């Protein structure tokens, strides 16, 4: 059926690993699962994780990908790798050897990024698979428990999923504990009699981890419900670093696969296929941002100007936000022909707002930063928990208004989890809006 053998894969893997090691990369060992198209769809639906808890949304995702693929609207990804030690990656049986070579080189790039980038330092890749496995088992047991059952489990998961991105976005930062904070505040109040804070306030600083806060402070949840919320929260925390580095991660992997292939001197028959695939991956998407393209081009620019060693340093310390802010300049915006656009309500169509010239490039860059990864997700934090268990949530308005219909639904979900009164405040068209 396939035109290649596992021995060939092993041969190429060895060469790829040698080349990558020669470039000073340091990645996790990779376990490649050779799977067919159906299994690839399955793997994609569960974000590549071999063990994941059950939820209908993954079935929906499967159907969506399946439909798009059948309609020819999307190609299956030729690469899929997860952040674990060893990294688990998938190779699709139907693909030709040239694709596999590229995929493996690409995976080395990702695995190196997972291991080196500081955003990932707290994802505990060594035991993540067993963690997910335990969570999946727990959820399955709840579903099978006759006193709970799938409907009750879904109620909690549906609601928790609606705020799954409402977790802290600064991995690696440890905050002061309540005791430490209290000590500091007391000291400050002693030094300055005019300074006053309420030491009893909960939370004592804006709490960005909605899931954790709700599971800890709600007085209406059963233990298994709290555990479910924690499972969703753990899940989110694991994926946050990936969402924070989508552009960098893909850009780096593309940079690495290109360098490895070029250094390996591969036969012409593969080379052409490789070029075709590579260009397909890193081409710009008209009217959209292709993270592969953006990341790849920016890394190319950095390597050209500052060398590969500098690029390696950058892949360690940056995330998308800082990466784009630091390295995008006027020339880059112009060359990539980036622009901002928005929907004009009175006309009912989109028009271009700013383009990459000397007046507009900064605005384009800033909007771009707002539009990658987690910057697309509004920030909502817990401001206050009052004595009567009223929860006050505030949307951190950064100039962009919420989509109210969606927000209203999410508000209802939070209410369902919390079980007591909730106040939620945002700003719509420059006016305060309370749900």
């Amino acid at each position: 059926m396939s035109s290649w053998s596992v021995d060939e894969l092993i041969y190429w893997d060895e060469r790829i690993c040698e080349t990558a090691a020669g470039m000073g990369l340091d990645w996790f060992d990779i376990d490649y699962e050779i799977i067919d198209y159906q299994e690839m769809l399955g793997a994609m639906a569960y974000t590549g994780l071999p063990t994941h808890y059950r939820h209908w949304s993954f079935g929906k995702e499967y159907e969506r990908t399946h439909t798009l693929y059948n309609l020819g609207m999307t190609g299956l990804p030729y690469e899929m790798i997860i952040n674990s030690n060893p990294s688990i990656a998938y190779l699709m049986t139907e693909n030709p050897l040239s694709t596999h070579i590229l995929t493996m080189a690409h995976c080395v790039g990702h695995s190196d990024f997972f291991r080196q980038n500081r955003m990932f330092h707290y994802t505990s890749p060594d035991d993540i698979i067993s963690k997910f496995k335990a969570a999946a088992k727990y959820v399955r047991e709840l579903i099978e428990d006759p006193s709970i059952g799938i409907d009750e489990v879904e109620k909690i998961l549906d609601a928790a999923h609606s705020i799954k991105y409402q977790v802290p976005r600064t991995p690696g930062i440890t905050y002061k504990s309540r005791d430490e904070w209290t000590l500091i505040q007391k000291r400050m109040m002693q030094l300055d009699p005019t300074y006053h804070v309420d030491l009893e306030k909960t939370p004592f600083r804006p709490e960005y981890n909605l899931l954790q806060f709700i599971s800890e402070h709600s007085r209406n949840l059963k233990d298994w419900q709290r555990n479910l919320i924690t499972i969703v929260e753990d899940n989110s925390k694991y994926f946050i670093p990936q969402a924070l580095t989508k552009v960098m991660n893909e850009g780096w992997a593309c940079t690495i696969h290109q360098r490895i292939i070029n250094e390996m001197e591969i036969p012409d028959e593969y080379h052409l296929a490789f070029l075709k695939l590579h260009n397909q991956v890193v081409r710009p998407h008209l009217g959209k941002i292709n993270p592969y393209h953006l990341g790849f081009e920016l890394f190319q620019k950095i390597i050209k100007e500052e060398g590969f060693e500098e690029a390696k340093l950058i892949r360690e310390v940056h995330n998308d936000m800082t990466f784009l802010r630091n390295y995008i300049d006027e020339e880059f915006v112009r060359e990539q022909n980036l622009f901002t656009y928005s929907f004009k309500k009175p006309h009912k169509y989109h028009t271009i707002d700013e383009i990459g010239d000397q007046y507009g490039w900064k605005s384009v860059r800033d909007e771009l930063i707002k539009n990658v990864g987690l910057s697309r997700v509004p920030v909502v934090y817990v401001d206050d928990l009052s004595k009567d268990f009223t929860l006050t949530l505030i949307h951190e308005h950064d100039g962009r208004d919420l989509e109210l219909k969606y927000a209203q639904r999410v508000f209802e979900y939070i209410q369902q989890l919390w079980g007591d009164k909730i106040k939620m405040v945002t700003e719509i068209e420059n006016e305060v809006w309370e749900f």
Partner: protein
Amino acid sequence: MSIFREHKSRVDRAASDRSRHKKKIEKAIKESIRDVVAEESIIGQNGKKKIRIPIRGIKEYRFIYGNNEINKNVGAAGQHSIRRGQKIGKKRAAGAQGQGAGEAGNQPGEEYYDVEISLEELAEYLFNDLELPDLEKKKFRFISQESIKRKGYRFKGIRPRLSKKETIKRKIRRKKKAIASGTYDPSSGERFPFHKDDLKYHHIKPKHKEHSSAVVFFLMDTSGSMTKERKYLARSFFFLLYQFLRYKYEKIEVVFISHSTEAQRVNEDDFFRKGAVGGTLVSSALDMALDIIDKEYHPSSWNLYTVYCGDGENWSADNSTAVKRFTQLKESNQLTVYCEINENLSATYDDSGIVDTAGSGTGPFDWANASAWKDEDTGALWGALAPCADKNFKRVVVAQPAHIWPAFNLIFGTENQ
């Protein structure tokens, strides 16, 4: 050094989540149906037309930013030259994309998760739990379809009909016997091949499917009092009914009768579109239906259904005649329905379906004595029909589009029979 693992057997991990998702869609479709059945776009369509059903609850809601002037998007223009203020169409952007055209599922405006189903499928969702009351097989049977059915096994047959299961069963049986009798030693490693006598074939038999025939009389009041809104409700109700009957019957005929003071047998178009003028004589339409039944559709050969839709504002002098005719219809019909359309009735159908149709009067709202009308007299038809009401004669009220489905359920729902 990496490890390569080939999967020997395929595992369909997503199977259970997919079926769960499917169940959710089906449930959501059933829930959205109240809105869908009253929608203009599906009414009057044939079975091939695809209907978009908006589904709530399947969507995964998150906090997202709205699509407006404050919230800017960023795109790459590739080789195209661009300028400020340039209009960019969604179509062009989508057409030029190729890969990754699947919109990030969180686009605002995508309020509903739509499912496209054909009217036939819709009928399946709608009518699966419903039954035609008192369905009889009448004398005339229409052999409308021949299907082929497997029936038993034979030793002779053509290759494609080979039954592998039966064949292997016979081989195993033979092998066991051979071992027991000592003619074959399984530990010898010798093959135990199939024998020609093991082969068994499916036997097939053509089967005639028999179907009962049905005729349904659509009677509608087109008098001056039937406003556009009332006609719309009547039309929606008839449309649903028509779909339902067509779903249940292979062969179905519909007779359209519209009436004001005089009844007229009309075609479908005229039935729904003709202008409304004149007074109301309900009995005129009933007379005509009885006459047509007598001449064309003998009750011994046909399942008969008569559905009357009107606003109930009959001439009071005609009420007793109308009741008499209704009673006559009831005798020959499987089911007779009197559907009163009147938006002045603030009828509340809750999930338990609180309408007094069988004359039991147990509902929380006393329909039989309801007098929401200004003129007590004109409402009398509803009350006058109360004694007729039983499982073969049902009365329902439709005051707004949302009532259509509950009313329909009340008539055909199995729990109400």
